[in-house]
């Protein structure tokens, strides 16, 4: 959770410093800026949407009636190498073109791409009266150079309770946190149900078998200039859904678990508020909307360890972006 909030603050503070320049972006063409940003940001939105679905469970076995667990989960979605760049096509833009007129397209870095000048071709920005300036494509974050790999982090707090018929209700909930500069809330709900009990013969086999369906909604908003322009904000929302069939086998204090199923996400990044361009005086309301969605097959394998009521687990999930999750918490009954 702190990671999310920390990220949000970084997100927010840099937007604050950018607000005057955002108006210049609008003068240069909202549509082009939006197209460019969509490709540049995509790995982050994809990674976050994939990562947030990690850690919903550490066993296929349901709690006993009113058994509970409370956990903290940290996820890292691994950004694949081919998403360190995206293809810039001249034809997709009106006012932005590759400076090298012999090229019609080129690969340029995403947020997780290179910072080196030689990997960032010059882009030529031309305004409505024909003035132009060329500049290097946006750099990547430098995360890979700093820690060795590109990862999108996320974190969650989760609680589960055993109900009837070997069914667990799982809740992820953070009530709305708000301050002058941000608002944040998350709510997620999942249901895990033991399937083995309904299948003749199988219910006698020495492993657990169940299904989980889970949904998560994260809402956040960061005010760019809360004192002077209280309507100007950056909004970042993500909804995720997951369905999996699970199996697990307990061996002493260890449990091996895994699942197969599907995962999906919808993410939107919006710049809200009213913005007026300096030269033309034209007003733009809610000028930038970036929408992302995706779904993929998901299979994961994990190992958890129970030390009395303490439960520690780690798993690796193969999906659109592979996700590593670690989870620590307490589990009773």
């Amino acid at each position, binding site marked *: 959770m702190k990671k999310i909030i920390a990220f949000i603050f*970084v*997100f*927010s503070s*840099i*937007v604050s*410093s*950018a607000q005057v*320049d*955002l*108006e*210049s*972006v609008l*003068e*240069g063409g909202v549509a082009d*800026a939006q197209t*460019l*940003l969509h490709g*540049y*940001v995509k790995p*982050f939105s994809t990674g976050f949407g994939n990562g947030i679905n990690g850690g919903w469970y550490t066993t296929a076995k349901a709690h006993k009636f009113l058994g509970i667990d409370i956990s903290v989960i940290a996820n890292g979605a691994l950004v694949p190498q081919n998403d360190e760049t995206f293809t810039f096509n001249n034809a997709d833009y009106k*006012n*932005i073109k590759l*400076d090298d007129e012999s090229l019609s397209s080129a690969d340029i870095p995403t*947020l997780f791409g290179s*910072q080196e*000048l030689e990997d*960032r071709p*010059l*882009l*030529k*920005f*031309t*305004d409505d009266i024909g*003035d*132009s*300036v*060329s*500049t*290097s494509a*946006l*750099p*990547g*974050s*430098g*995360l890979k*150079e*700093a*820690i060795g790999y590109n990862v999108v982090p996320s974190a969650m707090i989760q609680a589960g309770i055993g109900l009837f018929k070997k069914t667990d209700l799982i809740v992820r909930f953070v009530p709305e946190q708000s301050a002058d500069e941000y608002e944040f809330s998350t709510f997620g709900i999942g249901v895990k149900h033991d399937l083995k009990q309904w299948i003749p013969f199988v219910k006698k086999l020495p492993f657990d078998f169940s299904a989980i369906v889970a949904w998560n909604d994260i809402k956040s908003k960061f005010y760019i200039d809360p004192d002077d322009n209280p309507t100007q904000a*950056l909004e970042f929302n993500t909804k995720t859904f997951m369905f999996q069939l699970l199996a697990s086998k307990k061996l002493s204090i260890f449990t091996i678990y895994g699942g197969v199923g599907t995962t999906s996400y919808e993410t939107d990044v919006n710049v809200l508020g009213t913005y007026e361009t*300096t*030269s033309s005086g034209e007003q733009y309301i809610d000028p930038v909307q970036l929408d992302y969605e995706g779904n993929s097959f998901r299979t994961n394998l994990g190992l958890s360890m129970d030390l009395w009521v303490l439960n520690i687990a780690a798993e690796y999930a193969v999906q659109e972006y592979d996700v590593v999750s670690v989870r620590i918490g307490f589990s009773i009954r």
Partner: protein
Amino acid sequence: MKKIKVMKAVLLLCAVFAFSSCEENGEIQFIIKDDFDAVLLVKGAKDQTSFSLDSSVNISDLLANSSEFVYADVESVTLQLVDYSGESIDGTIEVLIDGNTTILNESVSLSETPTDPIIIPEEVSNIMDVISSETFPITVNTSSDEPIEDDDFSIKLTFVVKATVE
């Protein structure tokens, strides 16, 4: 001068998404390529075969108002006559920056059609000494093969400047 600050804007907006403190190799660098015009008025040169001009161009808006320059050079210059009553001026033109660095000295044919960009040799293209200031001092010395046919016209020089900034 350009009003476009798009790149800087996009950079800053997108840096939002980045973990911007992660760079290990120092400041992130950008190459910016921009151009500016210097229009030099020529008066009283009719029937002469040479003239010299001095001018300073305000470049405070150049290169998206960048201030931290790692390297800057002038890549090319394009020359053009403005409001010249004759056909052309054929001769030799010398362009100096800051009064002492000759970036161009060659035979040209000036007319109201812009010349092709004349590439500035690397050994004289460095303009780090002047790029950080808000003025760009230019000296133009022209010698014509034939007497000048107009007493009041201008020479427009369009400089393409490329800089690495942090």
